[in-house]
């Protein structure tokens, strides 16, 4: 049971990571490969607060809240530092630049003795629990979904669609790209803080470039640009490799191969991901049965 609830907790953290990366990659169309870096920034600063600064008299959930706030702000700050110079680049160049920055962050942490350096950061207080992780999941989704519904969201989406056309509509594309990037980075940092206080141990090698790729996989699997897709992608990719463990010895041995084959098959059959760019919406789902449609004009 403990194992299962740990998985559930991890999948919550990965939902935040994938939804936030989706804001950058899927919705704004800026190909970033540095998400693990922002995750690490949030994890280490949140953990550092827990180990060195947190006053004992505060209840755990207040401390976790402060820690998440610190994780969010520091990662968002890192997002500004990286985003402002990098977002002038496009496509592959941006991907390489963000990848480089993600690695730089990891190397810096590796060389910081106060947070354990290569020995890893230990004795982080256990504050995260299922309730608070999923509360943050809900907040993340609400905030990002709400932004998308408004004018800012339209502007961000139009950049993905066609940056030149967006520019000639009077949209300050650089501002909105930075906004999406910083917000995405901030939520990744928040997930990092939750992660640190759930695992109680951090190591710089837990934040390699591979993790950026895995988060990217989640959003591509779910459907770039779809928040519901990112959630489903994150849940599938946290549970699938683990569930394959329990399917008999042969499958367990070959589980990473099966996992890879399943990914390839899905991409071949549905290259846009499970949800494509669509959102699952209860109201429009019901409308299919009642036959009611709202008129726009």
């Amino acid at each position, binding site marked *: 049971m403990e194992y299962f609830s740990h998985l559930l907790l991890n999948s919550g953290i990965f939902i935040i990571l994938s939804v936030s990366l989706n804001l950058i990659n899927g919705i704004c169309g800026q190909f970033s490969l540095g998400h693990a870096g922002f995750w690490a920034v949030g994890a280490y600063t949140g953990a550092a607060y827990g180990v060195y600064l947190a006053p004992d008299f505060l209840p755990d959930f207040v401390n976790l809240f402060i820690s998440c706030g610190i994780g969010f702000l520091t990662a968002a700050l890192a997002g500004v530092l990286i985003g402002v110079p990098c977002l002038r680049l496009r496509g592959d160049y941006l991907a390489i630049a963000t990848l480089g920055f993600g690695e730089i962050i990891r190397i810096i942490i590796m060389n910081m003795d106060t947070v354990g350096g290569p020995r890893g950061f230990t004795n982080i207080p256990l504050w995260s629990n299922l309730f608070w992780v999923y509360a943050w999941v809900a907040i993340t989704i609400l905030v990002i979904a709400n932004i998308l519904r408004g*004018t800012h969201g*339209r*502007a961000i*989406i*139009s950049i*993905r*669609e*066609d940056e*030149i*056309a*967006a*520019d*000639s*509509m*009077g*949209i*300050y*594309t650089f501002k909105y790209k930075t906004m999406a990037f910083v917000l995405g980075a901030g939520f990744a940092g928040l997930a990092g803080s939750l992660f640190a206080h759930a695992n109680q141990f951090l190591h710089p090698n837990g934040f390699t470039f591979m993790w950026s790729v895995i988060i990217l996989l989640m959003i591509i699997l779910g459907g770039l*640009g779809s928040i519901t897709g990112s959630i489903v992608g994150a849940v599938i990719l946290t549970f699938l490799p683990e569930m394959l463990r329990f399917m008999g010895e042969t499958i367990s041995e070959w589980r990473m191969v099966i996992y890879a084959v399943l990914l390839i098959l899905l991409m071949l059959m549905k290259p846009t991901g499970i949800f494509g*760019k669509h959102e699952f919406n209860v109201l429009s789902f019901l409308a299919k049965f009642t036959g009611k449609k709202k008129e*726009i*004009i």
Partner: protein
Amino acid sequence: MSSPLLELKNLHVHYGAIHAIQGLNLVVNEGEIVTILGSNGAGKTTTLHSISGLIPTSSGEILFDGKRIDKTPAFKIVSHGIAQSPEGRMVFPDLTVFENLEMGAYLRNNKEEVDKDLHYMFSLFPRLLERKKQLAGTLSGGEQQMLAIARAYMSKPKLLLLDEPSLGIAPILVKAIFDAIVEINKTKNMTILLVEQNAFAALKIADRGYVIATGEMFMEGKADDLITNEEIQKAYLGH
């Protein structure tokens, strides 16, 4: 005479080492339809892009409403009152027709006025009304062109820049689109700068025309004069 709405003074533009625009002078007065003609690579689109701020100019001035705009970033130029319908249509493919038009009115706050213009565009292009909930990427080329023009109009500019609206479109739709351009110009008194390869169609609706070749002004004049000009006929009208 009052000062022109748009004036290019000795404009130069470079793409790296390539001197794409070499000292262009051009004037657009209020209420006119002016067309820029020229063959592939003559610098027509470059001229439009430099007006709307999408590419930086090297030297020279661009004056709009008496103010210099050649150093203004693209997104601010729209608020000055210039809107561009880019070449190759560039609609937002994954937004619906309706959402595309909403994006065009991105900078406007007066909902009533926007609604009025929206209805005007739908009356001008009934096709778009039929397809308002369809994703723009699934429209035909001609319909996308209509959408691109309508979207540019939705920002209610003083100057509408149209980049090759007839490119790759069925002849019957070309006529519909050019009729709509004239209609916008006449009823809304909107100034239009039209870049075209289809010289004959463009000169028929334009007041004046400029012909550019390899980044330099080749000829300018009243549209009626250009259309009868022998050199133009040989080079661009295929007579």
